[in-house]
């Protein structure tokens, strides 16, 4: 029994191999791209959300005739952790012969997988991981369409200096800004960026308060803030700690002018649901969200429609949109190379590719730097107003004006 099963499997493999070879030579074979996303495990929710964005982009393109007349196919690999990311990248490259890989949502997964790809001379097209390092390792075959971490801090400080300071009638140098961050790699790396950006913006940080995101009581964070008396608090939190801080800030009567989150917990719909009206006024810096001026983001309504149809529900976060935008750019570049996935041809086509801000579904422009980072990727500032996360700054993509509402006060 076992032996015959083995024989059958072997035969099936041989036959499929026989058919695969002539098909690939026929010219009309599909363009195959490896897609690495965490679909199971703790990163699964937003990992799958990210993949959905790329998948919608692929379906769009295929309906319009594909890339260079060929249909596009994804070979999806589940990468729940860094080891899986490395070994799956290895497998897609050596066993499946992939020349282009996309991914990955999580920065640490991206760092692992793209390292493998770059060493094999394979193109790695990152659509969602934000760690600065990804495009700073000197590899020529790694590209990233989404904004990098540094930009988050930059826009938080720019907004504090240019808008909040004016609203509360203080000079930027007099502005008191405190940073609270969870103390794992995510929070700490953003904290380092923010300290540098604060210095550059001429708004020195009043205090930096790290905390453990798994803590069950964070009143000490709030009490320290009360003691430091900042005007603006910048927060880097996961989901649960963002809610806990909001609740305890309200309980303890924290009196601040503005709170700016850094993606993560502060942009999830669960945050506003748990806090209710107390979430009103909380600012947040993140990828492009859905409450945005669609004149600035052509293609966004169509994306949302297609997404709803494909997955029976509205998008759960802006991650799918960022991946949709990035995958679309990838297909455009492959169109330029006539579907040729050779990495040096791809690189020259990518370096020549340009899009103006306000012409893509995320509103981001496209212009790759030597290191492969999209220099025109942007983060936008959103604000919770009546349980809606509205884009409020800068003017181009915004749908509402930012308003100075004391956070956690209602």
């Amino acid at each position: 029994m076992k032996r015959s099963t083995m024989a059958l499997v072997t035969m099936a493999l041989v036959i499929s191999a026989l058919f695969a070879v002539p098909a690939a030579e026929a010219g009309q074979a599909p363009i195959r791209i490896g897609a690495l996303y965490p679909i199971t495990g703790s990163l699964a929710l937003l990992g799958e959300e990210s993949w959905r964005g790329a998948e919608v982009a692929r379906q769009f393109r295929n309906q319009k005739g594909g890339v260079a007349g060929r249909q596009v196919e994804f070979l999806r690999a589940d990468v729940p952790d860094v080891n899986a990311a490395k070994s799956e990248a290895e497998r897609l490259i050596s066993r499946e012969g992939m020349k282009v890989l996309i991914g990955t949502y999580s920065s640490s997964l991206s760092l692992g997988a793209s390292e493998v790809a770059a060493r094999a001379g394979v193109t790695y097209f990152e659509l969602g991981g934000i760690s600065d390092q990804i495009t700073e390792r000197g590899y020529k075959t790694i590209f990233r369409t989404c904004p990098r971490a540094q930009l988050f801090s930059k826009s938080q400080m720019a907004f504090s200096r240019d808008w909040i300071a004016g609203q509360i009638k203080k000079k930027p140098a007099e502005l008191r800004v405190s940073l609270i961050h969870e103390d794992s790699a995510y929070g700490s790396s953003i904290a380092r960026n923010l300290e540098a950006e604060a210095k550059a913006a001429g708004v020195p940080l009043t205090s930096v308060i790290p905390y453990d995101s798994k803590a069950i009581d964070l009143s000490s964070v709030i009490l320290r803030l009360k003691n430091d008396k900042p005007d603006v608090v910048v927060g880097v939190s996961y989901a649960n700690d963002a809610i806990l801080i909001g609740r305890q800030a309200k309980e303890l009567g924290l009196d601040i002018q503005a709170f700016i989150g850094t993606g993560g917990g502060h942009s999830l719909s669960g945050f506003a649901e748990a806090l209710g009206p107390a979430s009103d006024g909380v600012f947040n810096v993140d990828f492009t969200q859905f409450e945005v001026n669609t004149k600035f983001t052509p293609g966004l309504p169509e994306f949302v429609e297609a997404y709803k149809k494909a997955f029976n529900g509205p998008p759960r976060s802006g991650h799918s949109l960022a991946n949709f935008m990035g995958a679309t750019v990838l297909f455009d570049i492959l169109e330029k190379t006539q579907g040729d996935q050779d990495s040096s041809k791809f690189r020259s086509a990518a370096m020549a590719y340009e899009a103006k801000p306000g012409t893509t579904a995320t509103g981001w422009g496209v212009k790759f730097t030597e290191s492969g980072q999209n220099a025109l990727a942007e983060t936008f500032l959103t604000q919770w107003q009546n349980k809606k996360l509205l884009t409020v700054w800068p003017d181009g993509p915004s749908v509402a004006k930012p308003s100075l509402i004391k956070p956690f006060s209602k």
Partner: protein
Amino acid sequence: MSDLFLQVTVSGLLIGGVYALLSIGLTMIFGVVRIINFAHGELMMLAMYLTFWLHTAHGVDPYLSLLVVAPAMFAIGVAIQRLVVQPILEAPALMKVFATVGLYIALQNLALMLFTADFRTIQTPYASASFRIGAISVSEPRLYAFLCAIVMIVALWAFLKFTLVGKALRAVAENRTVSALMGIRVSRLYLLAFGVGSAITGVAGTLLLPFSYVFPTIGSIYTLVAFVVVVLGGMGNMLGAFFGGLFIGLVESFSGTYVSPAIKEAAYFVIFILVLLVRPQGLFGMGKGSEEIGLK
């Protein structure tokens, strides 16, 4: 005495009350059955999910749901004692440890499977309600939890002190063999102790939910806190658990505010180690020998 100092003290005492409540259940099981229950936090996690479900699916107010949660947790505790602990009561200490650790892993993974890893919170009008005394603000749900802890300790103390069953429980805690010789049905009392301990823990979980959240692995955080409190207070000593809880709450609150929130756990573990070095029987320990309860 600045306002901040007072506020830090109040916040520390309030969270300390919750730690105390949590530890009383552990102490009950520890003191009587003499088993180290590593699945203690998981019992609380189960109670929190039960409260969450009663609230979201049936609209039951969390404080009202105590009427369901406490008996349910009592039943679960009795079942654990009967099915997991009783068969290995005479086994070496290590085996008991493995059994409850196994239970903790099983319950945690079962919860991950059934409830997913999402964080759940419930919405109540009083979730972040607070009132002010001068410049000090006091969180209402935390105050309820604190008061409830005190009521429970007093009730439990009275039960152990004045009722016949309570006296029997104390006798069993003191010496299992002699109690059996005196005609006390030891295994029944064990069932009762584990049941009551679980029910109290369940109540702690329910009282926590209005201002906290629940996720499948939350138990291990609380288990750790409860163990520190119980050892600090003297194993099996209820009053010790109460003051131990308040003490840990204060340590957390002061080190978090005046040093850094990132080190508050480290701070109470340092104190924990110091106490073990200087006074291994705990602050309220019953004296030489009792610190080994549960490992004999």
